[in-house]
């Protein structure tokens, strides 16, 4: 393959894009699991979660490796997701006047939407907790992550947005995780049903794990 033809030929084929989608999705799905476990330390008390945050910041190398992988994954995921979605709209050419769905699940049909809202959430989330550009609850928290969380989620709007986003993440994952196996060629008729269950379960574990925190704050269990 000569260099000049690379532009055209290096654009991944449909399946290539799908594989990128799956691998990046898998990284993100793994990440959210780790992230959730980390967050759940909040239930062990302020000290535990602050220690966890400190530990992270004490290892900037590790943090940045993880962040780079995440950034690359997010970009790859969004890039291929956008391409897929646009190409598919064009390929469908409007579709039939009567639209019937026999098998496609709600989650599969809403992937781009759940994805975009999750993206919006991620941006907001980063601005809030990572860059601290949105000061919710008013104060400078310094190293006290615990206080920041409590302050943020004490605002019902923030907590509800967070909860809603997590439910969408659950939706996204309940198609996404099973899909990863299909895309990588690791699924068959026998396993499809089981993987769908695993994916949905995984989605709910992640979502409930994350949701438990704002819920606990709202219900006054975490102060």
């Amino acid at each position, binding site marked *: *393959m*000569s260099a000049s033809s690379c532009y055209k030929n290096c654009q991944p*084929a*449909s*399946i*290539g*894009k*799908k*594989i990128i989608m799956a691998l990046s999705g898998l990284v993100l799905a793994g990440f959210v699991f780790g992230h959730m476990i980390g967050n759940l330390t909040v239930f062990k008390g302020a000290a535990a979660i602050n220690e966890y945050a400190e530990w992270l910041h004490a290892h900037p190398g590790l943090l940045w490796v993880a962040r780079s992988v995440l950034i690359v994954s997010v970009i790859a995921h969004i890039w291929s997701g956008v391409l*897929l979605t646009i*190409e*598919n709209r*064009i*390929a*469908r*050419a*409007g*579709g*039939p*006047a*009567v*639209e*019937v*769905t*026999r*098998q*496609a699940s709600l989650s*599969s*049909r809403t*992937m781009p939407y759940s994805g975009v809202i999750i993206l919006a959430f991620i941006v907001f989330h980063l601005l809030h907790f990572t860059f601290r550009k949105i000061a919710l609850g008013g104060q400078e928290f310094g190293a006290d992550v615990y206080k920041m969380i409590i302050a943020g989620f004490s605002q019902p709007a923030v907590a509800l947005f967070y909860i809603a986003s997590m439910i969408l993440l659950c939706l996204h994952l309940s*198609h996404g995780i*099973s*899909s990863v*196996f*299909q*895309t*990588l*060629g*690791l*699924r*068959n*008729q026998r396993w*499809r049903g089981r993987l769908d269950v695993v994916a949905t379960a995984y989605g709910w574990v992640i979502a409930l794990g994350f949701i438990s925190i704002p819920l606990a704050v709202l219900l006054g269990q975490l102060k």
Partner: protein
Amino acid sequence: MVKPSEQSSHDSERTLALRLRVWRQLRGGEGHFEEYSLAAVPVSASFLEMMDMLNEQLIREGKDTIAFDHDCREGICGMCSMTINGMPHGPIPGVTTCQLHMRNFRDGETITVEPWRARAFPVLKDLAVNRSAFDKVIQAGGFITVRTGSAPEANNTLIPKPIADEAMDAAECIGCGACVASCKNGSAMLFVGAKINHLNILPQGQPERERRTLAMVKTMDDAGFGNCTNYGECQAHCPKGITLDVIAKLNRDYLRARVKDFFSSTGKARKGGE
């Protein structure tokens, strides 16, 4: 929907009056729906026989008939192609348009009939579309290279029965395109996967396995089909019961071919372009 077995044996005497909303379009023109009424359709008639009746009625009225593709009328040639009430090949799973019978419809029902809709299948006239993109995909690699007369003795290649059966499962695809028409992404992965699966699992298919996979996928993409996002509509509408398994295996073979291609070596230093 009436279960066929509950019918009396002489159901042919029962007839239906129908309203039909049919897509009309000339080659290169814009399309629209037109409505027709058709009376006295015997429930024993096939859907295409009902369309024949409608066409005969149009001829009597001096109007142009509705063009649609069909040939064998026994569910094997893959030529018939109608989206009936939003469902490619109509409401009965595992049945082609030509094998669909009118006893599955109600008296007085309005039936909407459309062509396959996908960018890669442009409408030729009314309900007939151009599916030559499928042929192009096969031409790119859907074969095993064997010159006439050069084949070895047939029983020299032992093929375990399960492998032969699996290849046959995939080879039952009739190339109708309902998978593309039902896919919300206009993707042809079920069709391509079926052919890849048929040839790539057989011992005879091994020498060209990677080449075939890459070439067929590339041609599929170039033809303007969409990308699979694992909806599963194709499987649910395929009249021959081809399953998503063939897509999973296509994905796997594609990945494998790509990796092999990436690490392939010619054994010689490359000089210039290829």
